[in-house]
């Protein structure tokens, strides 16, 4: 059970949140100029890193705001929490994980 530091509400239990999967996925548009491959990649291609993973979460049973979170898939340590629209921060590699 993660303890997530909501940028608006402070540390709250994972129960209150929902994970929306990988973040920083650019939606390709306009539709008419997008190849099947690019579209397929956008729909289904996801990273599966051993280590830092940028995800988007929503404080569903709280303020209702979406935000980004950098989480280690090895230790479940939360390395950074930052607002939507901000770039993925360059943070150090957490213990026990590969670069």
């Amino acid at each position, binding site marked *: *059970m*993660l*303890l997530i530091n909501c940028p608006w509400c402070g540390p709250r*239990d994972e129960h209150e949140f929902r994970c929306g999967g990988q973040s920083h996925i650019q939606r390709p548009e306009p539709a008419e100029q997008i190849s099947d491959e690019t579209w397929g990649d956008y729909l289904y291609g996801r990273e599966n890193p051993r280590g830092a993973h940028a995800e988007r979460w929503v404080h569903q049973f709280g303020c209702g705001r979406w935000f980004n979170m950098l989480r280690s898939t090895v230790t479940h340590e939360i390395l950074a929490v930052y607002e939507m629209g901000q770039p993925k921060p360059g943070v150090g590699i957490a213990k026990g994980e590969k670069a």
Partner: protein
Amino acid sequence: MTANQEFRLPGGGSVNRSRPLTFTFEGRNYTGFEGDTLASALMANGVRLVGRSFKYHRPRGIIGAGVEESNALVQLGTGEHSIPNVRATEIPLFDGLVASAVNCWPNVKFDIGAVNNLASRFLSAGFYYKTFMWPDWHLFEGFIRKAAGLGKMPNLPDPDRYETRFAHCDVLVIGGGAAGIAAALAAGQSGARVMLVEQDSELGGALNYDIVSIDGKRSDAWVSGSKEALKALPEAQILTSTAAVGYFDHNSIALVERRTWNPTELSKPGAFACRLWQVRAKKVILATGALERPIAFGGNDRPGVMLASAARAYIGRYAVAPGRVGALFTNNDEAYRTALMLTSAGVEVAAVVDSRVGRNPLAERLEASGVAVHSGAVVCDTRGGASLKGIQVREASGATRWIACDLLAVSGGYNPTVHLFCQSGGKVAYDDAAACFRPGPANQSLVCAGALNGYSDVTKALAEGHDAGIRSALDAGYVSKAAAPATLPSLAQRPIEALWSVSGGKNKAFVDFQNDVSVGDIELAQRESFISVEHLKRYTTLGMAADQGKTSNVNALAIMSSLTGKTIEETGTTRYRFPFTPVPLGAFRGAARGERFRPLRRMPAHDRHVAFNAEFEEFGGWLRPAYYPRPGETPHMAEQREALQVRNSAGVFEGSPLGKIEVKGPDAGKFLDLIYANTMSTLKVGRCRYGLMLGENGVIIDDGVTARLADDHFLVGTTGGGADRIAAWLEEWLQCEWLHLNVIVAPVTTSWGVLTLSGPAAREVLRAAGTSFSIEPDDFPHMTFKSGQVAGIDARVYRVSFTGDVSYEINVPAGRTGELWDALFEAGAPFGIAPVGIDAWMVLRTEKGFLHVGVDTDGTTNPLDVGWGHVMRKNCDFVGKRSLMRPNDAAPDRLQLVGLRAADEKSALPIGAHIAGGTGSIGFVTSSSFSPTLGRGVALGMLVGGSKRLGEQVTIQTDGGARLATVVESAAFDPAGDRLNA
């Protein structure tokens, strides 16, 4: 009565001799004392045979004194209160307790299943898989499952109450032994919020029977003093009978507090059986101690063989002699305490068998009091039937002899209780010198203290616990000035010498008592290449069942390592998983039972429906009227009458669950164009438009009517089931993708109650009810919207229709829905107005061929499949558009929506029936009703290439045989829409 307790020692222990309690085991009555466990009370009465083993039905006795117990599983209680497989060592005795042994029939002494023991040479590991393969395992499975299993599940609902609770603390101390108490005292005195958790009913652990001097007091007195000191601290909390069962991320720990097993207590108001705690701690101190492990030798499962530390607990804590003539088998010094304690309790010690060569001071002390110590010797076999009568000792010389005894205390050393540490993500390392797995580096904010670190030195445990308490409090922001407990330095010990199994006995040597896994089974698994510990576990079932291998796992992997020539470290452990000890399912549900498990929502006019004798059903979490039967009516008759009511006059349907979302802002139109497959920005103020929403994969996820209230203000309608989901969907797009759009979204579904007035007389009824705006057809035509007042109530009114007749969806503040209902029924009385349930509503929309998302569509249906090809001409992007451009999304052989008209029109086609093609199904019926208006069945379905098959004959497979049908347009009633637009 106490005279019956023939094994009760005349003095000592912490049982309350002035409070005798009676209990029943296997149909016989006994007496014990307050402070006993069921196990200690049975032992006091000389009951040694307490269960039958899982596979061979061998007689088994008590081997432990706590959570590690693998044999003494009982069925506690009777009837609905009955609980299977509870450890007798963990049930505090209460008056009137009733228990019986598990896995035996007709009783534990004469057990038919024991015939398995005679056939045991055929029942080795993997026996089932090898023997019952031909022709098919499933032929045998039912029989085998019946023979397997331990206790019996009660077949009545659990009447007990359970609770759940959340807690936060600065320092959580798990384990209330020497290290844990010292830690809690040190941390607690800093003012930090401290929780001390102990699975036993009493704090103290081994301090309660391995008496030492702490702060100048007997250790048991120090324990009670510490308990009082902790209770006096306002921020400290002690939870006993509470097991920490799970260690999850970010110092989140699950505890299970057992309040009582006693049905009499449970029947009192407010009483509960268990409470599940979810604790978030800044710092955790793991002081979980260590569990003694047995040694595998022939006949080591005979009742009378028990762990050395358990024997001391029975003598010291419960004042029970675990036998008349004892012996000790050990590979370490710690267990010598047992021999000394037996002697001082007046139990003759026939032999101390120490596998280590050489002399030691403890042995000399025992020999001085006449106890024979056999150094470099092992116990290789036992004899006796259902109770130990003697042990076979093999001396260092190789000579064997039998020694008579009825108790054998065994110690193969200690396994630190690393379960929670491993669950937390920490790794263990094997310590050759201490012959155990110890915690390595931690992965979370925790400290390990005491015997968990792989030693059994109380002085060190107290100091380490104290230090952990000070440091953890400091980390949490509190300074403690508590003084460390003062003890005498422990005597130096001779080191343990690892001993896992002894060969040469005629009887089976058991490693896992609860699952009947012997050394031979491990050898077999190794021969058959099930070498990895995880494979070994699954092949032999070792370490499964209720005890999860607390006494067997490490022994088994050590034996496997000796067979493979790998080190124990290389062999590794199986994964330690939640929960540490069995948890009743009720503890997880807590109070969430029945409607509290899944609360049902009631609509604002609920009591009006009740007054009309509504039959309620659940739709998407809402209790909604399915129909309103009148005297003598079947559900079908009520449905047909209500549908005709709408066609012939007017009916009222409550649609309050329909989703309502306000979308406002300068970019609202642009935003909705992206969200809907069709265009919303061109909608004129005051008008409504039906729209489809898609997922990015092009599949229809919702539909509904949207009204434009102002240039920058839309009211989006969704299906009842989509209300919450679509509001969240809009937010996600706005917050994560189109941050540049200036739009706000506000779900207002439950703020408004909705009554839909529908039928040819609807306008007359509404006029009679009174409106603040004109409702004449030219002023308020189909697909328009008005704000104003209806019957004097502020209202938002849509003129839209799901029935095909003139309809007004009247939205009023939810609290005034009943008032509106009354006004409509008063105004409609001359027209014979009546309420309409969901069933009739579905008949009406099926007659009209209106799409019902989630009923006619599924997770593959795109808008082109339901005749919405025009969306591809839309000249801006929208969610899902690119997916519709994939060739497959426009393929001609997709399932497409059609109307179906059965040749035999007198009965409706069954919903879900398949449409037969040459080689299989080519579609299915999605909606079907008998239309009382048309006097025939009407149906919708999905059919391969359906849009090009109008007029074709198809065959529909039903339970009653094949039926012919024609593919028709989906609207069967008023296809031109004359009634709709009237």
